[in-house]
């Protein structure tokens, strides 16, 4: 089997963002005054725990951003043909979770379908719940289900704890070596929380994540852990695939916002005069249009463009991807105004400070003053805005998908999941698992992001210091 790598637009931008983050981290490591606030973030238990959870989401998102197309088995060797389905490395890792489809809805951990059907039993046609094709297929009798689930959960917990213990041992060995202390002394320090970093929280969160992961793996091997949706797709799979969409919206939108907000905000505050007037005028106009309506108008326009130029996109994934990118662009264009206003105000204050005036008196060029004196001093505001905006953008996606101007309906996203499941609430018994899965995943990501953002803000915002 050979593969054709596919680089979607958002994939490319995600990896550009990753590279930029790496460069920034490298630059920060070399400067003590830049490292200090990050070290203070690392000392906060809540922020570090949240960062670990975010890390899991990010790894999944990155794996899900490496796309490829499989070569069709019956294509000629000289003229290879590739499947129109775009898969990712993450799909390959999940394996059977993607392909094991049932007929329609089934409840979490069920072994029978949600709807009754006519089935053959002992030569008779009876109306009953048919067995699932994959979920619990290894069981001979329904009574075996609960003991089997209990066994799998137990195995998962034990495996997870073992993995957590190994991770703990590695962390202990590494940190003890780094500090040049004996392992026993390190352990005592860990127990009393005197290591200078929240090692207890980190170990507990790591162990919890390992237990959760191992249990899910154990259960998913035999069941649909979160049930299946209307077309029989595994809900756990959909929820995991939606992570990438949420992360892309939360990060790429900010990437669009930053150049506009930084460039225009600082320019308005620094140059004053007509530049300030023009920029203020532009952002008041943009701000005065209700955000949802502006996004809706722009998305409708993008939709018309995509529909009238179908030849530009060779796969459905590429089409959905362009729409996602357009959504990020549009949300970025509508949301830069808040940060720009903040930066303008801060720059107004900074430009009157003595060192800036001195630089100007020495004849330092505007570009150099902006780059060396103004920008580094407003950078903390930019950083705080990035982390604070992230969670709001993830939540906004769900609302926009409901309005019908969110991501492409074929794309996996929590908004689309909620939208699809909303109408099924009227069923009896109700189909709750899709909604709950989408809300729980979204809540976990947003809560982790919010807690991390709080840590970052407390560490970077001088006004917050000494007060909580």
């Amino acid at each position, binding site marked *: 089997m050979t593969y054709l790598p596919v680089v979607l637009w958002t994939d490319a931008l995600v990896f550009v963002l990753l590279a930029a983050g790496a460069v920034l981290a490298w630059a920060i490591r070399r400067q003590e005054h830049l490292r200090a606030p990050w070290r203070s973030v690392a000392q906060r238990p809540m922020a570090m725990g949240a960062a670990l959870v975010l890390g899991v989401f990010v790894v999944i998102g990155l794996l899900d951003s490496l796309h490829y197309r499989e070569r069709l088995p019956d294509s000629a060797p000289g003229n290879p043909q590739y499947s129109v389905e775009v898969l990712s490395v993450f799909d390959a890792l999940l394996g059977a979770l993607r392909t094991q489809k049932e007929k329609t809805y089934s409840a979490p951990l069920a072994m029978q379908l949600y709807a009754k059907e006519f089935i053959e039993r002992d030569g008779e046609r009876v109306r009953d719940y048919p067995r699932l094709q994959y979920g619990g297929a290894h069981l001979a009798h329904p009574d075996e289900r609960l003991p089997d689930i209990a066994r799998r959960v137990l195995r998962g917990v034990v495996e997870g704890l073992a993995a957590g213990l190994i991770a703990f041992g590695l962390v202990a060995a590494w940190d003890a070596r780094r500090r040049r202390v004996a392992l026993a002394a390190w352990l005592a320090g860990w127990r009393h929380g005197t290591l200078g970093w929240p090692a207890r929280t980190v170990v507990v969160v790591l162990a919890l994540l390992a237990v959760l992961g191992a249990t899910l793996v154990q259960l998913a091997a035999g069941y649909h852990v979160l049930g299946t949706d209307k077309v029989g797709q595994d809900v756990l799979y959909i929820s995991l695939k939606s992570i990438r969409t949420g992360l892309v919206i939360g990060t790429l939108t900010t990437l669009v916002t930053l150049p506009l907000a930084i460039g225009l905000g600082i320019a308005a505050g620094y140059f004053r005069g007509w530049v300030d007037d023009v920029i203020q005028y532009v952002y008041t106009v943009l701000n005065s249009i209700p955000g949802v309506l502006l996004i*809706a108008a722009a998305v409708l326009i993008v939709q018309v463009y995509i529909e*009238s130029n179908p030849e530009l996109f060779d796969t459905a994934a590429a089409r959905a991807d362009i729409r996602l990118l357009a959504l990020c662009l549009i949300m970025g264009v509508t949301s830069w105004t808040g940060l720009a206003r903040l930066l303008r105000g801060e720059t107004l204050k900074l430009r009157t400070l003595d060192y800036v005036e001195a630089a100007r008196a020495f004849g330092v060029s505007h570009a150099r003053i902006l780059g060396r004196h103004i920008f580094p001093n407003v950078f903390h505001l930019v950083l705080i805005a990035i982390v604070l905006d992230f969670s709001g953008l993830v939540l906004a996606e769900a609302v926009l998908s409901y309005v019908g101007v969110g991501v492409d309906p074929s794309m996996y996203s929590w908004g689309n999941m909620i939208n699809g499941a909303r109408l099924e609430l009227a069923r009896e018994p109700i189909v709750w698992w899709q909604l709950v899965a989408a809300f729980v995943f979204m809540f976990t990501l947003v809560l982790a992001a919010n807690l991390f953002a709080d840590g970052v803000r407390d560490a970077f915002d001088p006004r917050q210091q000494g007060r*909580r």
Partner: protein
Amino acid sequence: MHAYILRRLLYAIPILIGVNLLTFTLFFVVNTPDDMARLQLGAKHVTPEAIERWKTEHGYDRPLLLNRDAAGMAQLTDTIFFRHSAAMFAFEFGKGDDGRDIGTEIRTRMGPSLAIALPVFVIGLLVNISFALLMVFFRASYLDVGGVVLCVVLMSISGLFYIIAGQYFIAKLWNLLPISGFADGIAAWKFIVLPVLVGVVSGIGSGARWYRTIFLEEIGKDYVRTARAKGLPEARVLFHHVLKNGMIPILTGAVVVLPLLFMGSLITESFFGIPGLGSYTIDAIQAQDFAVVRAMVFLGAFLYIVGLILTDISYSWVDPRVRLQ
């Protein structure tokens, strides 16, 4: 004072013109009437004649900016820009795709929107301020930390969840209130309670946390130390001095959203079946009724600018120094 207000009013005019030009560009230049017709007619029925007919029916068969066939002033007035964009300044929005007059729709739908949005605003403000004051009163204790964590948790829950959970538990499972719908007059109360409750609860997280920081900022000021130094009990300092001074940024910050309450909330109204402007807008977006979307963009921008002017006035009223600049 009058000169100041006049200046702010004059400043609003170029912004409204900017909004108007932007919507004109978005809806008629980037996305031409031909595109709209194609989208509305659907892929199967697109013929050049059908597009022309659709454009004639909706009055989009004129040139964009300059009509060279007409005579005199009609060269400027018999155009799409004048008839569909400039006319909005006179609040003439034309007709939607369903043939109804948009202006009449807006007037009849403002009431229900306001019936939901106003209680959410007032009750929400009271609840958030009380919650924030409580946290500040017990500041730096476990109660405060717990309150802040609760706020972050509440903030992290999707707004859709509050609506769906409220509808499911309160309306469907416990049968306390109707799931959705609306009635005229006083009978509407039972349709209003649930949306208001959901609206207030979903706003607590971010609101209370924000007000808490405002009060905490206030508490570090000199007058609070003076009040304590002269022996006032902590409760009196907080509820008398800090509350009053903290209300200034809170209320002036809230003024800007006051006019926008007319627009209602998109999601709440559409979930609860309230015949307000929010559900009107959402229906228009979903039906791709550009005339209505355009009208709502203009109305929203207009109300926002009214809010900005009110904010400026309230600031200058509270703090006379602003006026002199």
